[in-house]
């Protein structure tokens, strides 16, 4: 049986600053995961990935990251995405400082 599709968001790093960004439903890049479009349909997710990957003058390293729906929007299911959402744990740097 094919594996069931789990919800995802499109994520990347911003070209100029390198920050982690997420694709929103209205095609903007947001630094805040809560604003990301949660993709629950596999075909739609693939289309969004292709569209986002073409925007190479804005972002680098586009991919689909696993998420689950939360009260305030998508929530990471893996600790790697948790760190990408917040920033390093040795310094109060990155997104946790900026958001």
């Amino acid at each position, binding site marked *: 049986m094919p594996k069931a599709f789990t919800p995802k968001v499109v994520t990347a*790093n911003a*070209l*100029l*600053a*390198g*920050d*982690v960004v997420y694709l929103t439903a209205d095609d903007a890049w947001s630094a805040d995961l809560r604003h990301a479009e949660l993709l629950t349909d596999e075909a739609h997710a693939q289309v969004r990935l292709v569209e986002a990957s073409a925007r*190479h*003058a804005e972002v*680098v*390293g586009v991919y689909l990251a696993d998420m689950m729906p939360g009260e305030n929007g998508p929530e990471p*299911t*893996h*600790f*790697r995405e948790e*760190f*990408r959402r917040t*920033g*390093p*744990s*040795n*310094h109060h*740097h*990155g*997104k946790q400082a900026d958001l």
Partner: protein
Amino acid sequence: MYHYNDFDAAFVAERNRQFRAQVERRIDGSLTEDEFKPLRLMNGLYLQLHAYMLRVAIPYGTLNSAQMRQLAYLAEKWDKGYGHFTTRQNIQYNWPALRDIPDMLDALAEVQMHAIQTSGNTIRNVTADHFAGAAADEIADPRPVAELLRQWSTDHPEFQFLPRKFKIAVTGSPNDRAVTAAHDVAIRITERDGQIGYTVLVGGGLGRTPMIGKVINDFVPQEDLLPYVEAIVSVWNLLGRRDNKYKARIKITVLEHGIDEIRALVEKRFAETKDAFNGADLALFEEIKTHFRHPNFRNVTEEAYDAAYKADPVFRSWADTNLAQHRAPGYAIVQISLKKHGETPGDASAEQMRVMADLAYAYGHDELRISHEQNVILPHVHKSDLPAVHAKLKAHGLATANIDLVSDIIACPGMDYCALATARSIPIAQQIATRFDELKLEHEIGELKIKISGCINACGHHHVGHIGILGLDRAGVENYQITLGGDHRETMALGQRTGPGFSAEEIVPAIERIVEAYLENRKGREETFLQAFNRLGMAPFKTALYDQEARVAAE
């Protein structure tokens, strides 16, 4: 210290100009990331988890105060006020913005520094003993050899697209402080019948398939060194497995073909290419050596040192732990710990960099070294100046007396920064250091090297740690595997796995149980952890780690 000539300076300036244009084209959209990535990597620019990362080479770990100050300036102007020193004598900036990189590279060029070949499938920054030119046990200064190799390898047309990155380390002392046997090529200066020559090893490396280098030639005479190393790289360039990234390193080539076949091929290649060198390399080598003359050592009394040593227990503890024996009478090698308990191993703030630069300038013949253990060295300090040096270090959080002790941990950036990581390293190092500081056991335990990597690439040298910790991802949860008995010196050994790994919450108590088992079982203070492990084997440590009863008893 080596000074760039006009050719070197023009070369770096041209390279920076080229890269500036490439960055502009990336930003205006005329280069895609696929086109740009190999170009940025050629200039030390990575993209990491949260930001870009710029890796700057510190050739053979040697710096002067102006260079250290410039590193501080970069940290402050274009980063978040600190830099991270690595095990391969580089400094990494974790937060630069893409458009600032060309300015950063130009600022580096002002002090004869660059990021060339700090990345990519080339011969990387050549590393050397961090006590070079100062150590009492040194046969000859390894830095002229390293500088010769640097000049030869930089943009060497044959070696820009090797099967994989290639790492060379040089030691001039029989006591290996440069982890040479874990490098693709190890060069060990040796003396035979009054002649200086080199024992050359190949095929060492850590990472996915850790291996200890094997001797390919136990005595290469001085005049043959460069052609001989070129023959090695050349043979591997042909044989190396380009079909599989993980099998591309020379350690696999040596494994697959056997050291004897490799030796024969290298000899053959050497015979073909030797004449092309024409002795030009030797003339250059003689010229380079003149840049590494010893400073004029002072001859003054050590009274100030003796007085402080008697009067101040904090100074005494620091002196006992952080100083190493210098070749010149009255002098000491000062090791500055970048491992203050609870801080990130290898990080230095811009202010701390300036303090170290000032000290090198005022008391250290203007020389600094970066150690592969992520610490900073003042190689030549007269003992009478040590109380002043210590006071200044102390005032800036740089006087932690823990060199070679349990909190002097090598830790790679791990998941906190690194895009390749499978778990974090830094917080584990911070917690271990803090815990043993609380227990006040550090000095009682004595020499004990803990090394941590956040994935199997082994940047943190965990395979050669007395206690090695490897962070893994077990079903979406951080898990830490322990190895014991690794040795990073000339007696290199790879650590053995203890058994199942530990969660992030369990790992610090697990390390504590290992250390307790050592304290209970050692013959006395003279028996180090590594010696005790080599005598006792794995059994008592395994019991301490996994036996439930032992666990309860220990709690």
